[in-house]
């Protein structure tokens, strides 16, 4: 049982580090796509392709260059989590009503003030839905990280299968499913909290 909890911690480290990296790259890319009509097509096309790639394939494609272990798994999981973040941030920013931006400009706000006080609060709920998708998928895909030696709950599932240990198998499967569902519900609730009251 103690080993199961160690694997839970490892799983959350993998997913958490990957999501943090994906946010660092995905947020600016999403803003870039929304603000620059010239770059939008290219950025969104790339995100679209990234969205269709099988997660096992992305984990494996880095293997010849980055080898095995936690670091390459985090890089691969981050790459998988960037597209949903970029797509939803772009959608969220472009969905901000023009009237709100005009009103802010009329009040004498600088572009930076407009972005911080109008665009960000209004774009937050839709952006959150992308983070929610990314988080759920990252927790799910992190199970596959076991195949490149990165640990996590995938280790327990694979060990349960190999040793035909039903109790271990069900426990590990239930824990990883609960983590994914829990993240989905928690971020759904957080998304409702950050929604501006109208």
């Amino acid at each position, binding site marked *: 049982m103690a080993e199961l909890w160690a694997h839970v911690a490892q799983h959350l480290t993998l997913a958490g580090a990957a999501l943090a990296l994906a946010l660092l790259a995905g947020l600016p890319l999403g803003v870039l796509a929304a603000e620059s009509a010239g770059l939008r097509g290219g950025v969104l096309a790339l995100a679209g392709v990234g969205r269709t790639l099988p997660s096992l394939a992305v984990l494996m494609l880095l293997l010849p260059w980055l080898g095995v272990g936690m670091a390459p798994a985090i890089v691969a999981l981050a790459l998988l989590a960037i597209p949903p973040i970029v797509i939803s941030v772009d959608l969220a920013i472009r969905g901000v009503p023009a009237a709100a931006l005009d009103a802010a400009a009329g009040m004498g706000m600088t572009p930076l003030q407009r972005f911080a006080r109008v665009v960000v609060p209004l774009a937050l709920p839709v952006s959150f839905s992308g983070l929610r998708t990314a988080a759920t998928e990252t927790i*799910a895909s992190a199970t596959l990280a076991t195949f490149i030696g990165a640990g996590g709950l995938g280790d327990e599932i694979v060990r349960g299968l190999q040793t035909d240990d039903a109790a271990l198998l069900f426990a590990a499967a239930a824990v990883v499913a609960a983590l994914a569902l829990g993240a989905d519900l928690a971020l759904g609730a957080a998304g409702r909290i950050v929604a501006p009251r109208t």
Partner: protein
Amino acid sequence: MSYLASHPLRVATLLGGHVEIVAVALAVALLIAVPLGLFAARRPRLSPWLLGTLGAIYTIPSLALLAVLVRAFGLGFAPIFVALVVYAQFMLARNVVAGIAGVDPAQVDAARGLGMSPLQVLLRVEFPQALPVMIGGVRIAAIAMIAIATLGGYVGGVGLGVLIFNGLTLHQPQMIVAGSVTASALAVAVDALLRLVERRFATA
């Protein structure tokens, strides 16, 4: 890439197996999801519960569900096939419900006024209008299924995942890359193809 060049037949055979299991599972999944979606679309109070349940199942990581299915069915074709059909339900049924909900109610009324039976209204008015959204669901499901089917190499010796997992066991990076690249290319190609189909039905 060298493995792809040296073993084109092997890769092609596994690609064929990959396409086959996804296509058959998608057909079976549609046979379940379309009636299920139509049933839910007619019951607005029930449909959030049904879609919520299917959505929760969809959230379960595929390796976890697959492991449980292997316990139930043993290794081979069955667990991966069942997993594919189960995962597809959410994406397919959700888009059937959304497609039917998006049908212009005035046109349904007009069709009823013309004396069409409920079945005629469904087949001649609702279905054609809901089709682009439903095809969108098929596209999203197909992409997810191509990804999940790579695990068929782990539990069933089916599909392009065989190259990935055999490559891992044999320490053959070229084999792993060949399997990953081919599976990725398949996903991108199917996505592009179904986007074309979607657009054709949207303008018709």
